[in-house]
């Protein structure tokens, strides 16, 4: 019975980690990345708790009358408390950075923000951005539609 529950917890912890890491890697929305980070950290913390857990044991609190019963290893639980606190701090910092990015660049899209950052860095340094498929060098070979030019000309 307890082994089955343990397996469920293990699968849950590892799934949380995988979902979170996939979310960070795959999503473009800044806020979703922070949420995915929270999920991944929850998974890692659960795994850490499970690493010292025993299903046949009691909580590790010394009450004076030691019953001789096995206790759960308290060390991973103390570590997880630390990890949770660190995680909360980092997530709060990440959110404050998201707010600043939104204020400066008006976007919550990672790729767009990154593009604007690269442009600004290139611009500050006085470097022309490298050629890429998204930004071919020079004019595009396709001319503007003739009708639009004609329409503009006749008004004058």
């Amino acid at each position, binding site marked *: 019975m307890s082994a089955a529950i343990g397996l469920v917890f293990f699968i849950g912890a590892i799934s949380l980690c995988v979902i979170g890491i996939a979310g960070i890697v795959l999503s473009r929305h800044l806020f979703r990345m922070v949420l995915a*980070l929270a999920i991944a950290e929850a998974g890692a913390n659960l795994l850490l708790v499970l690493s010292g857990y025993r299903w046949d044991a009691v909580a590790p609190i010394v009450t004076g009358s030691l019953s001789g019963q096995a206790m759960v290893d308290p060390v991973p639980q103390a*570590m997880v408390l630390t990890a949770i606190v660190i995680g909360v701090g980092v997530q709060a910092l990440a959110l404050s950075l998201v707010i*600043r990015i939104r204020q400066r660049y008006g976007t919550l899209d990672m790729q767009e923000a990154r593009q604007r950052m690269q442009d600004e860095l290139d611009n500050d*340094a*006085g470097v022309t951005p490298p050629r890429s498929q998204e930004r071919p060098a020079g004019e595009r070979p396709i001319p503007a539609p003739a009708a639009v030019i004609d329409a503009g000309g006749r008004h004058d």
Partner: protein
Amino acid sequence: MTEVTLAVVLPLLGAFVLPLTRHTGVRWLAAVIGPALLAACALLLFAAWSAFDAPYTIALGSFAPPLGIAFYIDRLALLFALAVPLTTLALWPAEAEADESAGRRQSLTLLLAGALSGLALSGDLFNLYVFYELAAVASYGLIVGNGNSPAYVAAFRYLMISALGSVVGLIGIALIYFKTGTLNLAHLSTLSEQLADPQGLAAFAMLVIGFGVKAEIFPVNGWVPEVYSAAGKRVAALLAGLASKLAVLVIVRVLLLVFPYDETRQLLLVLGIFGVAVGELAAWQARDLPRMLAWSSIGQLGVVFVAFSLPGTAGVIAGVTVAMHHLVVKSALFLLADRWDKAITRLRGAASTSHLGAALFVLFSLSLLGLPPLPGFWSKFLVLGGLAASASPLQLLAMGVILTGTVIEGAYLLRVIVMLYAGPDTATPVPRQRRGNLLSASLFALVLLAAAVLVDPLWQGIEALADRAVDTTGYQNTVLNTPEAGR
């Protein structure tokens, strides 16, 4: 003996006292407190260094290891711990105007220094993780400290990569705890055989990814160029020069004590080769100085990992030499890039406005390339000699990659030097170097030249240090048999 812990405690204390002193109205106190604390740390670490005869542990709160957390002090730890306050002092963010943001930068720098000292001294895996996170959080704050918009995006991306690394590292720690039930490095090293299976090796790989983010190791270094070019250059110097070395030290400790196997060494070797290849090629492509230096630091740290992947004392000797050399040189080069942060073509004739700056740049570039008798030559010589001594195909490949990398390095660094000494461009004159940066860079140059002169005593010192560092039974006995230490 216990006063070494003050090297961690004093900067942390200072970081939180510093904002309070601003409100006392005594202006000079706030300006003096940071450098004074760091100088005190450097002094007491130096005293510990000169009084050192055998490694010892400090059981924090008198809880004996493996139950309590212990600091382990040997020459390797003391060397890296000593480098922290000294480098931080040389890169101290001393601002002319003592505004609010300058105070915040100083607090964060102290926080970073305390956390990095902890990384050098601690002998407990989870404690290392906590110090690592503390250093990471302080560095996010420092990166956005200059308040320009690209820094926020760069810091966010760095935070995401670093947090991802932390999650992976935490899973690695959980895996190790599953298998052994302890996280004390000495205790783990007695249980090392239990970790010599695929699960243990997976845990090591996860720890490398986790702690490797700051060490700019190959798959998790995408944040490097944008962070170093968007942040202030003193911050970039601190992160590239100092913080990366302490992260390397953590990985090396875990490698030497807990996973002294061929497979783990090969993992570091392969990641190092990739780092060298990617870093040097990208640096060759870069067209502004900060990003060139950033990519080149990825390449250099690749060499560091290749060096530490060598077995036995040879690996530690080569690794420590390369790491310390890179610490000195890259910090100084980033200081020079503070005013020369534009495209390389815009540096035309910079030597005519600041002679000293250009001369220092040439000195550091030549040492980075490995021109004898500068220390860079010895560091590369040791790595290549070690690789040649144990010539497996992978190590020969590493040799080839490092040598090719050096040629590429020569191509891009000489390109900058040629630009510096070209005839001046009168239309857009290159800005002069700031005096404070020149002073700090000169200090680094003095260290470099002193190391070039004192090769022999340095060699003996590093050899003795490496003998201790690979002595795992000595480590175990020192940590696990001293219940009274720390009283």
